[in-house]
């Protein structure tokens, strides 16, 4: 009788250990998935200055920085301007460079020299920045 009880208790302990092992595996799997989501989730960054460029931001804009194949792409969606970089910081710095480049390029060609899409892009940019006098 005592032997049977001991065998049952042992069996129960073994089942419990197996359940714990399965749970442990599941937790590790979930942790890995959360880490992956954290890496691939887009980051929204408010941009409040274009310094040291001689441009003034009339209102801040939000840049969306997301990983793409081991690099990062930062986008200013309202103006359809994007830039790439090896890190989030580099992508953001490159985006600022591209915003200034867009303004300079488009103002240089305005007055009949822009396609419809770029005319709209310039209109949007004018809502956000102007050159310091």
């Amino acid at each position: 009788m005592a032997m049977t009880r001991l065998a049952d208790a042992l069996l129960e302990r073994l089942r419990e250990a197996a359940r714990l092992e399965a749970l442990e595996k599941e937790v590790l799997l979930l942790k890995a998935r959360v880490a992956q989501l954290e890496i691939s989730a887009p980051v929204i960054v408010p941009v409040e200055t274009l310094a040291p460029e001689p441009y003034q931001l009339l209102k801040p804009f939000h840049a969306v920085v997301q990983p793409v194949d081991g690099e990062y792409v930062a986008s200013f969606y309202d103006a359809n301007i994007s830039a790439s970089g090896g890190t989030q910081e580099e992508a953001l710095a490159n985006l600022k460079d591209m915003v200034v480049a867009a303004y300079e390029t488009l103002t240089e060609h305005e007055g009949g020299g822009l396609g419809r899409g770029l005319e709209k892009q310039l209109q949007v940019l004018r809502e956000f920045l102007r050159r310091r006098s």
Partner: protein
Amino acid sequence: MPHITKELAQKIAKKLGARIVDCSGKAHDRALVFHGGRLIAWFGIRRGSGRDLGHDHVPKQIHVHPRQARLLGQCPLERDDWIAILTEKGIL
């Protein structure tokens, strides 16, 4: 490895007949694409020396899917096909 490398971005610029504006002291040179005497698209080409530098921002700048951008650089898609895509999207 990025979808669009610097080398591919340069090929896309060439395919679209872009005028390259050298911007020393800046992070990017500019590729300007004209059609009918108007500037219709532009994108930045990073000035770093690596041929594999990421340029995954280019498809958005030229209003196409990354796959179409790759096709532009790799040959099957021609400038006229791209102009047709932009016309269809109401961008021209």
